[in-house]
């Protein structure tokens, strides 16, 4: 027997869903198109590694960049098929504050562990040794470029690229064989209403931007007293700034579809993207120099402005609570 009656009479009415975005357009035009590209580019990457597994191979490095681009563009879609079997984590294990990726790869190389020989075995290794960030070490880090056992390194590169291709294909398959329909036509166990499906996309959007601000920009920024340029994402292949641009473009597309073209929101995205493009500092080396550091800080502020508009404007329109406690996360 509960006694809430008095409280209920004072209850503030729950906001009803004012905006109802076109879910089919988001699923088909944003999610599926993004994962199809990732799947194709990842298959090309595995093929390139089969043809030439030398880290210096231009074809291989080119395929690496293209597939990694495709991943970053969908890296905010962290729900459903990407989370099954930890597929997204196995594609992208970063940040890696304890340096688990180079440690795990170094151990393989030293022991010449036979686990890299068969894809079904490789799928069982630590996710730190899998995915794009592991591949970056194998293609760009001196520890692996200078490796003496070229044959084993070649096996590792092929194992990692095949694993990437199979994970990307599995995510796409998960979407194409059921998950897409759950979101296009809510009213099922996973998404009981259009509101829930729209809120899932909103969460992906805001979490993706938080990651860009706090990890992609925040890690190299460190503090004013102690900047951390060596923590920039994928700096060995000079992709750190590129990831910020790609992730902003990817989330902008979702924001556009989810907000029905909200001008203020898209302006904020365009400002941030333009600023990032003008930065001319691919690995955020400038964070150590007060003269250039502020430009990275301003970019981070631009991203945070987008986040604020999302939580204060788009969130409430989609029925997402923007409360003092609900936003706190503690």
């Amino acid at each position: 027997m509960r006694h809430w009656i008095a409280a209920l009479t004072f209850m503030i009415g729950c906001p009803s869903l004012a905006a109802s975005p076109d879910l089919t357009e988001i699923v088909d035009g944003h999610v599926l198109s993004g994962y199809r590209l990732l799947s194709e580019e990842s298959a090309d990457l595995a093929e390139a590694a089969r043809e030439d597994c030398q880290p210096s191979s231009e074809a291989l490095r080119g395929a690496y960049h293209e597939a990694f681009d495709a991943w970053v563009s969908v890296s905010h879609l962290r729900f459903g098929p990407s989370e099954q079997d930890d597929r997204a984590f196995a594609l992208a294990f970063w940040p890696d504050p304890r340096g688990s990726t180079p440690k795990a790869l170094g151990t393989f190389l030293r022991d010449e562990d036979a686990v890299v020989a068969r894809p079904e075995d490789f799928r069982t290794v630590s996710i730190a040794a899998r995915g794009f960030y592991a591949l970056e070490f194998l293609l760009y880090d001196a520890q692996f470029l200078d490796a003496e056992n070229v044959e084993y390194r070649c096996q590792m590169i092929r194992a990692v690229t095949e694993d990437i291709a199979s994970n990307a294909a599995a995510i796409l398959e998960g979407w194409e064989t059921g998950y897409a329909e759950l979101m296009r036509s809510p009213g099922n166990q996973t998404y009981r209403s259009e509101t829930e499906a729209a809120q899932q996309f909103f969460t992906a959007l805001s979490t993706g931007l938080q990651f860009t601000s706090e990890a992609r920009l925040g890690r190299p920024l460190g503090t004013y007293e102690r900047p951390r340029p060596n923590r920039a994402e994928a700096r060995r292949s000079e992709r750190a700034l590129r990831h910020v641009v790609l992730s902003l473009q990817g989330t902008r597309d979702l924001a556009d579809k989810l907000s029905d073209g909200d001008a203020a929101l898209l302006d904020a995205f365009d400002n941030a993207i333009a600023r990032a493009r003008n930065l001319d500092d691919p690995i955020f080396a400038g964070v150590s120099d007060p003269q250039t550091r502020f430009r990275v800080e301003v970019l981070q502020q631009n991203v945070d402005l987008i986040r604020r508009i999302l939580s204060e404007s788009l969130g409430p329109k989609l029925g997402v609570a923007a409360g003092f406690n609900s936003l706190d996360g503690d």
Partner: protein
Amino acid sequence: MSTRRSFIAGMLASGFFPLPTWAEAGSPVFLSAGLRPDGTYVLCGLGASGEITFELPLPARGHAAAAHPTLAQAVAFARRPGRFALVIDCVTGRELARLAAPAGRHFYGHGTFSADGDLLFTTENDYETARGIVGIWDARHRYKRLGEFSSGGIGPHDIRRVPGSDTLVVANGGIETHPETGRAKLNIPTMRPNLSYLSYSGTLQDSAEPPEEMHRNSIRHLSVRRDGLVAAACQWQGDLGDVPALLATHRPGEPLHFHASATDLERKMQGYVGSVAVSQDGEQIAITGPRGGLASVFDVAGRYTGFLDEPDICGTAALPDGFAFTTGKGFVLFDRPDAGRPVRQNLQWDNHLVAGAV
């Protein structure tokens, strides 16, 4: 009321003059941090009807508070990753001491006193090595730091004393963060939360982890029944389409018992519980879900018995005959036979409502 022992301790601490007790602070039943409309942060005492008994300024956003068991002293913790905690005399509003996190440490926002009030324990992050730490502070000597020990895991959050014992229980949330990356979670795929029982000197007496398939169920907040039954509230870091039970109960030596609602409550809460409280009669457990805008009550066997819809509800604490709740909209609500009118203050109540010492 102060016991003779703490009375003497108080005299010693103050240089022969007795320190004020809770009665002189207007006998608050609860403590909560809040945000005023002018943008300033405060720590408040709340009476049994939800009235504000005192309101003292804080320099930044608070999180939880710890009430000294006898003296009218409250420790207000900065929100994670804060580096300060204020010890406030709740009668005069004077700052008695300021705890500064040692180099390389930050607070998580929770702390608890030893039964006699002589020691304060705080959860902290040794962030360069990602080790959870319990800091020890001397409440009798201006809260000087005495030492520290391992919390038994990564990301310790809530900490409680098991009643009638000198055992601490810590919710190691399992999530690695670093102040330079704000609140970004750095180790979700490998996180391993646990509940750890520790002596005052840091001896690990028992530890319990969620099962493998729930390793992303971050144990964050605790409430302990008089007999030592621990209620633990979780925040799910996995897929929101797949949220498991968010409430567990535990006794040392046993595994964690998770209690699912059977009504999809966990999904409605979006996998996120803000606070937990065991009722004073020990028969019921309340959990709050600010993201879902609802609170729910279970019996201690884990059977779900009811819920309350209320936007941004987060704080909860036990009353002699039920529960009190606070919300980010300023409401203080009651679930008890004579619930009365909800009270609304012109401020936003922060995460936790802490039962006072009187």
